[in-house]
């Protein structure tokens, strides 16, 4: 079924009217309530009155992650903090974390787009959904929870981890829908076999996978092993969390809910719009959000867009699978990691400014591993092995504390980390997705 039949199958022209109307109201609302945006508009010599249709969006300034960090906690918010009903905080790139907050209406919006998402994947009323995304500050678990509530599905909120329990719950309650990261789904297949189960006998028929990059070959593998339809979900906490775009059963691009999250694909160098089908940076404007609405937010995700009507009848444009990043962010087990965060930790440890390298790897059907190589210099070095171990352990604890993912720290000899043009290559991603 289509959750919001009226909006999701709307004629493009009527949809454009709605988008135009919403943009005008949004710009007036933000200009009035957010001094940071007011200054951005003033600097760009734009007044709300000049925005007459969605086409005028090109005249508006971009928003970047640094704007959120620099104005932490509430500077970029348009709603008063007292009107917020939920906060999600993620570790920032350096220094301040990123805060997003939702008003009561924002939670309603999130519930609606997540219901659209889960329906778009193929769920029907009466289904049971096992939500194995983490619940907590990570938006994955709660976002799915709100959408499934909105749809009236039976929810099993397993959250992430405890794999044998996940599998037992699946056997005992036969949920047809599974929501988790794609690598975790593959990991569970191995665990199932170890428990003497045949993954092909599972009750899961539809998977909604996201929060990390995955490829066509991973999709094929998941579908073969589990006998399920593996669909891709896209979202980011800055915009709403999961629920920005979702694949339908035709698996031919992700329907982006453009009546509320207006997409543009731009050339990150020039800021100019890219033609449909061409890769560029995905930029999103939240047309109806109240708490922290964002104008032309640069996601740093690379994708293309397709405006053709889909066989599923939805008229909303489709974005491609995310093809990469315009910055050096890597996603590990659903968590965003910037090399600068690790650099920050190393610099924070007294007297060290060592060269380092992050190696991300994934053995077949295993979860991602992160190894941080740190070059030993004279300040770090000691003739006592226990001191070197203490140093390794300290780096490990600080990185794990900041990123909430396990890492391995390995000390290496000086000048052994590969450098190009004098600069060390910070990330080696060996994952075969």
């Amino acid at each position: 079924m289509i959750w919001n039949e009226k909006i999701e199958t709307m004629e493009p022209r009527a949809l454009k009217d709605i988008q135009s109307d919403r943009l005008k109201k949004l710009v007036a609302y933000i200009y009035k309530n957010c001094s940071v945006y007011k200054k951005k508009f003033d600097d760009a010599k734009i007044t709300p009155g000049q925005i007459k249709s969605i086409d005028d969006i090109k005249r508006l300034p971009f928003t970047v992650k640094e704007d959120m960090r620099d104005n932490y906690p509430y500077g970029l918010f348009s709603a008063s903090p007292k009107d917020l009903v939920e906060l999600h905080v993620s570790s920032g790139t350096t220094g301040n974390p990123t805060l997003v907050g939702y008003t009561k209406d924002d939670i309603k919006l999130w519930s609606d787009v997540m219901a659209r998402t889960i329906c778009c994947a193929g769920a029907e009323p009466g289904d049971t959904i096992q939500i194995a995304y983490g619940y907590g500050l990570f938006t994955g678990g709660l976002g799915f929870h709100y959408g499934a509530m909105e749809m009236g599905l039976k929810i099993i909120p397993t959250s992430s981890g405890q794999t044998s329990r996940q599998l037992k719950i699946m056997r005992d309650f036969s949920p047809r829908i599974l929501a988790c990261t794609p690598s975790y789904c593959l990991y569970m297949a191995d665990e199932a076999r170890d428990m003497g189960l045949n993954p092909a006998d599972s009750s899961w028929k539809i998977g909604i996978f996201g929060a990390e990059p995955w490829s066509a070959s991973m999709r094929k593998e998941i579908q073969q092993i589990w006998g399920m339809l593996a669909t891709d979900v896209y979202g980011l906490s800055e915009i709403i969390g999961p629920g920005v775009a979702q694949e339908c059963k035709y698996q031919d691009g992700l329907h982006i809910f453009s009546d509320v999250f207006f997409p543009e694909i731009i050339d990150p160098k020039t800021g100019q719009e890219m033609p449909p089908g061409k890769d560029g940076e995905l930029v999103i404007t939240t047309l109806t959000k109240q708490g922290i609405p964002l104008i032309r937010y640069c996601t740093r995700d690379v994708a293309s867009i397709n405006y053709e009507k889909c066989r599923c009848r939805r008229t909303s444009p489709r974005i491609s699978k995310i093809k990469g990043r315009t910055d050096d962010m890597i996603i590990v087990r659903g968590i965003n990691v910037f090399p600068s965060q690790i650099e920050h930790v190393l610099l924070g440890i007294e007297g060290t400014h060592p060269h380092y390298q992050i190696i991300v790897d994934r053995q077949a059907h295993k979860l991602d591993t992160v190894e941080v190589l740190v070059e030993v210099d004279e300040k770090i070095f000691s003739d006592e092995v226990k001191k070197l171990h203490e140093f390794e352990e300290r780096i490990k604890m600080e990185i794990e504390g900041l990123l909430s993912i396990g890492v391995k720290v390995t000390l290496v000899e000086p000048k052994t980390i590969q450098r190009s043009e004098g600069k060390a290559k910070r990330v080696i991603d060996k994952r075969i997705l």
Partner: protein
Amino acid sequence: MKITQISVFLENKKGRLYEVCSLLGKNNVNIYALTIAETESFGVLRIVVDKSDLAVKVLKQNNFVANITEVVAVEVADQPGGLAAILKILVNNDISVEYMYGFVEKFSDKAILVFRFEDTDKAQKVLIGNDIKIVTKKEIEDL
């Protein structure tokens, strides 16, 4: 009275120990004592040589991380209970040994042992006070 030990950081990679030894050999540095503390991913090589300053210089020039540690070399009777006698003195005086190793070369009928103490000065004082012969830097260089 203390002697100089050179400590070198080595990754657990094939040929690294050879590279250190061959580098020292080429520079006419003789190794008298050697031990390696190894872990899963790296090791620390500790050596006593005849020309410490030169050894450190060439190691650093060749991108090794090396430093100098003060250790105490002690003469021990080369007979059953020789080491135990020394250790008894240390235990009785509450002195901790970080690590220790034996000397390759013997220049008398006694064995030489190298000790790395937590508190080198205190250890040295206690050993001298108990009439234990400590090998001097000069004696090492003249070996």
